[in-house]
Structure formats: C-alpha cells, structure tokens
C-alpha cells in the first residue's frame, strides 16, 4: 500500500525524482580552521558537517593504542534541531552509537592505518538537518574531510542507500521513503575499484530483487563519486593552477 504513494504511476517519487535520480549534492571542503580537515555536505535536505583531527597522540588511556595501526575514533552526533521533533540526546543514544561504530568500521577498512602506528585519528560528524540518508551523507562528508586533512586512503568512500518499490529499485531515499517500512539497502563502496566496504540491509526483501537493488546502489555511488570528484579536481586545479590533473584510472 505504501508503495502506491511513494512511487506514482508515471514513475515519479514523492519528491518528483525518477527512481534512479539522486538528490542535489553540494559540498565545501575546509570550512573550519581549528580542525585539520573539515567538510560540509548537503544531499537534498540532509546537511552534515564532518571534522577530522589528527593523526595525533592518543588521548585518554594509552592502553587503547594499537601497536601497528592507526586508532580511528569516530563520533556521530545529531543536533537537537536536526529532526522534526526536538532530539533529547544528541549523542550517546543507541542509534548514535550504532552509527558511530558503523562509521569507524567503514573508515578502518579504507584509511591506510599501517602508516600511523600508535597514534589516533578523530572523525567527528554532526548532522545539522536530517532528511534520510544520514549514514550516507556522513560517510561522504567524512571522506571529503579526510581528504582535506591529507589522510591517505585507498580510494574515496561513497555511500548510498536504495530500496525496492513496486518492482522498481530506487536510490538515495529521503526520510519519508526510509520510514515507509520498505527494505533499505545501504552500501559504502570504493567507486573506482567497485568494492563494497560496508553493506547493510534491513526489513524484508525477496532474494531475487537484492542484486538488482545492489547494482542500482552501486551506480548511485559512482554517480555521487563523479559529482564529488569533479568539484574536488576543479578546486585542486585552480589552487595548483594546472590545466588538468594526471589521472591514473
């Protein structure tokens, strides 16, 4: 029943997008002076800030230090004004802790941690306005912030969400579509090598539909990558005053 309102007969979604159309993405790197790297990203109405501090000496207990790898410390928090109803606990509630650990797992896999043993890297993500795709926007913003901080990574990490409505896979869901109760597939990928770093699916989805949705989400991630990479390269070219950058595939 919910599928009928979320996807019209003409194939348009509730906000007028086509099923495989992404929301508008705008971002800016280097928005803060205090942080080593920072980024502000908007995906539709979801607005996220990411700040990276580090690598620096371990704060707190020395016992947490990893003798051969970088320790990544993430904190995900939602501003009290980010959702329709005022959020009572910006951080520390279960959802935020789950997100925090997902972000940590994602970036642990991508950052070249062997290069910085015994030190710590902090990634802080603050959601200013939440309209679906919080994890995706957080990952994308954190990637940009890590790039701004100069932390070596294997590739961009781009995340996108997807679902299956009325036999049509859709990508980049907003809050209404997420809370409608349909299946949600969230993927974080390395777009250039097409490898999946993080994958989560919840609610019920028929196994026949899964690979279709995953393919569409992968395409969505690559589209987001193209948007982000284009602007990043343009800014770099401007700063270094090169006509174009040498790309290695």
């Amino acid at each position, binding site marked *: 029943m919910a599928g009928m309102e979320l996807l019209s007969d003409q194939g348009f979604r509730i906000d007028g997008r086509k099923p495989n159309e992404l929301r508008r993405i705008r971002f800016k790197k280097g928005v803060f002076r*205090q942080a080593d790297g920072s980024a502000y990203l908007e995906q539709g109405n979801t607005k996220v800030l990411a700040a990276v501090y580090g690598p620096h000496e371990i704060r707190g207990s020395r016992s947490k230090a990893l003798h051969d790898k970088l320790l990544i410390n993430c*904190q995900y928090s939602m501003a009290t004004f980010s959702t329709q109803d005022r959020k009572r606990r910006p951080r520390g509630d279960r959802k935020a802790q789950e997100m925090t650990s997902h972000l940590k797992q994602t970036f642990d896999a991508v950052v070249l941690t062997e290069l910085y043993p015994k030190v710590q890297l902090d990634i802080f993500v603050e959601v200013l306005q939440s309209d679906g795709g919080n994890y995706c926007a957080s990952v994308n913003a954190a990637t940009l912030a890590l790039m701004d901080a100069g932390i070596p990574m294997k590739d961009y990490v781009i995340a996108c969400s997807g679902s299956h409505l009325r036999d049509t896979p859709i990508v980049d869901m907003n809050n209404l579509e997420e809370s409608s109760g349909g299946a949600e597939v969230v993927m974080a990928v390395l777009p250039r090598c097409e490898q999946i770093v993080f994958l989560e699916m919840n609610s019920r989805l028929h196994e026949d539909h899964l690979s279709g949705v995953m393919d569409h989400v992968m395409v969505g991630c690559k589209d987001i990558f193209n948007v982000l990479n284009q602007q990043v390269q343009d800014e770099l070219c401007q700063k270094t005053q090169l006509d174009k950058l040498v790309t290695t595939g």
Partner: protein
Amino acid sequence: MFEPATEAKLADHCTLCVHRRGILTGQAGQYNHYVWDKSIPNVELSPLCSPNFRPGPPGEQAQVLSQNMDDLLKTSGCINFEDLCICPGKLSWVLHISLVCLDYDGNIMDACVLALVAALKNTCLPAVTVDEETGDIKTDPTTHTPLSVACCPVSTSFIVFDNNILLVDPTNEEEKLATGAVTVVAEGSNLVSIYKPGGTPLRDDQIEDCIDRALERSLEAARLIDDTLCSIDR
C-alpha cells in the same frame, strides 16, 4: 524543517543558533521558577569545534555560557515572556534554543549573543487554537506571527594583556595569554550586563573605556543584524 537559525561568524569563530518551539502547559504571569523555564538556551561546545573540548557531558565552560545566555534573555528584556503565553494559566510556548559552536577561535560569548539575538529576531510563531471543550490544541502552520524582540543586546569582550593593555574581541591564542578579561553587554545606549571574572585589577577609567567601546559596537552590530534580516525573505 530547519527552524529559525542563524549563523554568527566572527572571523574564524562560527556559532550556529537554532530555535525550536514547543508548547508548555502551566502557570503564566507569575514570577515563579516555572515561568522562567519558558526559554531554555543550551550552548554546545563539542570536540568538533576544537581539540580543547573532550567528548562527554557539557564541561564547565559550556554550562557557564548556557547560564549566561539564560540570564541575558531573562534580564535584558529583549523578549517579553507574556508574548509567549497562549492561554493564560494553561498554555504557553517554550523556546528551546540551541547554540552550537562549529569552529572555536575565542570570544565565544560575543558570537553566542549575536547568534541568539539574530535567531530570536528571525523567529515566527504559528497561530494556536485551543478547543475549549475537548482541550484539543491545533497549530496553524500557515500563519506566522514574528516574535517581537524589543531590543538587541550585543556583547563585547575584552582581554587584559600584560596587566595594562586592553584587546577587544580576542582570538583563542590571545585568550590563552590573557591576564584578565571583561565582557560588557550593551543595548543601544543601555547597559545590560558587565562581567569581570577576576584577573588583573582594572582602574575606573579603563572600565569606562570598555563600556564606551561596547556601546558604540552595540549600535553597529544591531544595525548589521537588522540589515541582514531585512535582506532575507521570510
């Protein structure tokens, strides 16, 4: 969805202030503790804004600032709390004010006050109808009455350096090297508050100098806020 929000940027220091409105049932028109809770400002200094802040519950600085904002709102008279009353004795609006520091470079008090005042001026309250018999509360999202903000308090902070030099609008580095500090909150030609938390003792004429400069700055800042708010469309 993004309720009245303003971002105040003082050079590298950036604070975001957002209001949320809620409806509170209770006594109105009485100067008791309960009525004073009609506005709840909260300043957040998270590790996002500076490496000086640790994750966890609000530290001393954040709590002191929240209390300062609260006192400022209540004593400066910039909002008339009677305006927030919907049904005398039964229903009133509560303003939840969140001040989030995004990038910390000193002089957070000034940035917070600026953001707070600008956000208050940007606030609109929808019309509320209460059904007398059923007690049903209905808000009409299409009608917006702007909150009347009587005045525009502006804070100016100074630090004392080397026991006799006064520097206005200090950066983080300057604050760390300061031997004393003074904060003056002024509105037009009226003084709202003066705060000198210990530090180097100052003479009368130095404090008067600070007050004069604060009064000047308050006029400029008030004009800046008004110009900015006029230029956005509501």
